[in-house]
């Protein structure tokens, strides 16, 4: 008997008497604090930063956020960057990126998370090899909590998707919290409406 047949047969034999599957509510609560304020507090708590969209070009904002950065690589048309993102090349090419830029699909107020899939990253490693990450987020696209987040059901058909909440972190030595473990050292969310001119090619900086 194959391992598969053997395991499944024994599972069927050993399964305890069946129990029901409860419905999961969305626990909307009664918070009077606006979603955006909750989201901002969540990001900050997890070590990230939130800034408003500038009046001027996004490339200038990124330069002011990371003046030391030499290589800026953007997965969104809203930012030109200095290094082209080429999905046909091996992802290790992105090791030298100082700042990655990507647009999130939506945010989660409860936790301060942003949802990103391979379609946003274009090269998934951009979110992890970059030293810093700047995430554009439409403030109208913030859901209340993780129950609502997982009800964005179509998102979870993506081959790869991740809730990113603040930068990579570790507290494995004596509980000392360090931001910038193996992945990004900082995460900045730029609140920028996707419908504004900022997301279109009209604002693209050459």
């Amino acid at each position, binding site marked *: 008997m194959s*391992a*598969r047949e*053997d*395991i*499944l047969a*024994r*599972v069927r*034999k*050993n*399964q*305890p008497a*069946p*129990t*029901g*599957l*409860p419905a*999961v509510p969305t*626990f909307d609560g009664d918070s009077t604090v606006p979603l955006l304020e909750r989201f901002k507090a969540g990001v900050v708590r*997890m070590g990230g930063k939130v800034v408003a969209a500038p009046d001027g070009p996004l490339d200038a904002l990124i330069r002011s956020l990371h003046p030391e950065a030499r290589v800026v690589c953007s997965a969104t048309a809203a930012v030109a960057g200095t290094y082209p993102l080429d999905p046909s090349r091996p*992802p*290790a090419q992105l*090791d030298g990126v100082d700042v990655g830029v990507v647009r999130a699909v939506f945010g989660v107020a*409860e936790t301060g*998370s942003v949802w990103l899939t391979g379609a946003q990253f274009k090269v*998934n*490693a951009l*979110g*992890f*090899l970059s030293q810093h990450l700047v995430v554009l987020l439409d403030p109208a696209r913030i859901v209340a*909590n*993780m*129950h609502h987040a*997982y*009800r964005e*059901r179509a998102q*979870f*058909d*993506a*081959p*790869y*998707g*991740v*809730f*990113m*909440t603040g930068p*990579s*972190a*570790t*507290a*494995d*030595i*004596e*509980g*000392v919290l*360090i931001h*910038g*473990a*193996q*992945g*990004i050292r900082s995460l900045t969310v730029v609140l920028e409406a996707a419908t504004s001119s900022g997301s279109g090619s009209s604002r693209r900086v050459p």
Partner: protein
Amino acid sequence: MKRIDHSEASSKFIKAKDHLEFHDKRLWDLRKKRDRESEHLPEWEELRTLASAIKEHTLTHLADYLEEFERNAIANGATVHWARDAAEHNQIVLDILQANGARTLVKAKSMLTDECEMRPFLETRGIEVMETDLGERIQQLDDEPPSHIVVPAVHKLRGDVARVFAEKIGTDPANSDVHYLAESQRTHTRPYFLRAEAGMTGANFAVAETGTVVVCTNEGNADLSVNLPKLHIASVGVEKVIPKIEHLGVFVRMLSRSALGSPITQLTSHFRAPRPGAQMHVILVDNGRVERLGMADFWPSLKCIRCGACMNTCPVYRRSGGLSYGATYSGPIGVIIDPTFNLRKFSLLPFASTLNGSCTSVCPVRINIHEQIYKWRQVIAERNQLPIVKQEAMRAAGKVLASPRLYRAAAEAANAGISKLPRMVVYNPLNAWGRQREVPDAPLLTFRQWYLKFRSPKK
């Protein structure tokens, strides 16, 4: 196989006073942070009930959900393997690596691969295995297993890490700054991510509805391990499957809150299908889980989501250290699942508990941990797995407690003994209760003497 003597092993841990004090404090701090988070959510207790019910439903329909997961994973382009035990699991991993000419494996933390002792198996067969989680890497370099399922090196102080890193990756032995040590590991590990041919993760959840493997981490190492190499292997215990995407909401809200007291891990990653040109392999592993599913008293331990909250709250765990348990899983959850791997070897572990029930009250999936600990003690006694000293002590105690006359005589004699006998007699080496603690002053009267004197209805 030799019986693990937790009490004997922990005496070594207890001797290192700085370590003991820090360990106790650090884990209690995690427990307090967990409390703050749970008190902040009005629906916390309801979430625990839901999480428990979802897990129970899944485990009682496990075969169907495993088949559904497999079907969807295959449809996504992944390859699904089944492993009855650790040996089969390790061989499957090796076969996949060799078939792809992979010599270097970057891996995220996975208790299952520790349980299978996969690393030494691969290393002796020419595979370089790089643990990329900081805590797990410290333990790998120090040639020790993880001492905690969430924070593998929590029993070490910064000086210990500085020593290990200086010896093994060439850091400055005099520099034990935590930022320096973490940065050194980052710099040392990065090239491995760039050149490894294969990456490996465990799974926190496997979603049947979509065939998705979900991994919750903080360091970014799991996403680097999967998104750089062209080969991803995920080892998944069969109990990790849950029915639908929407159920993730319940578990993700509770996992990191219970584990570290943070609302969510920095990264909650959903691996559903390989990238174009890459491969994804999922290994569904039994290794004793299916047998446990058939144990009427113990199957609810399979609900465990490996948050470690029961360990952080346990006074015995905090003061004895995870390595004293001599098993992959330590603390309260360890002592109820380890005996299913080897009853004799782990027969003393269920006695490493005060039965205070704190583990049960913090468990996010409502496992009746302390009741299972008590039941394991019964099983172990029934199967004659108690050591002779404990057997004899229990037999004597049974006789005394069964006879009011004997009990009275013993209680009076003990009280008289504590107050009158010299210290060296009371604290003799056979009196385990006299180690590391002072025996309280004996009361002037036993309860019965007091009751007869002051409360007894006088005729």
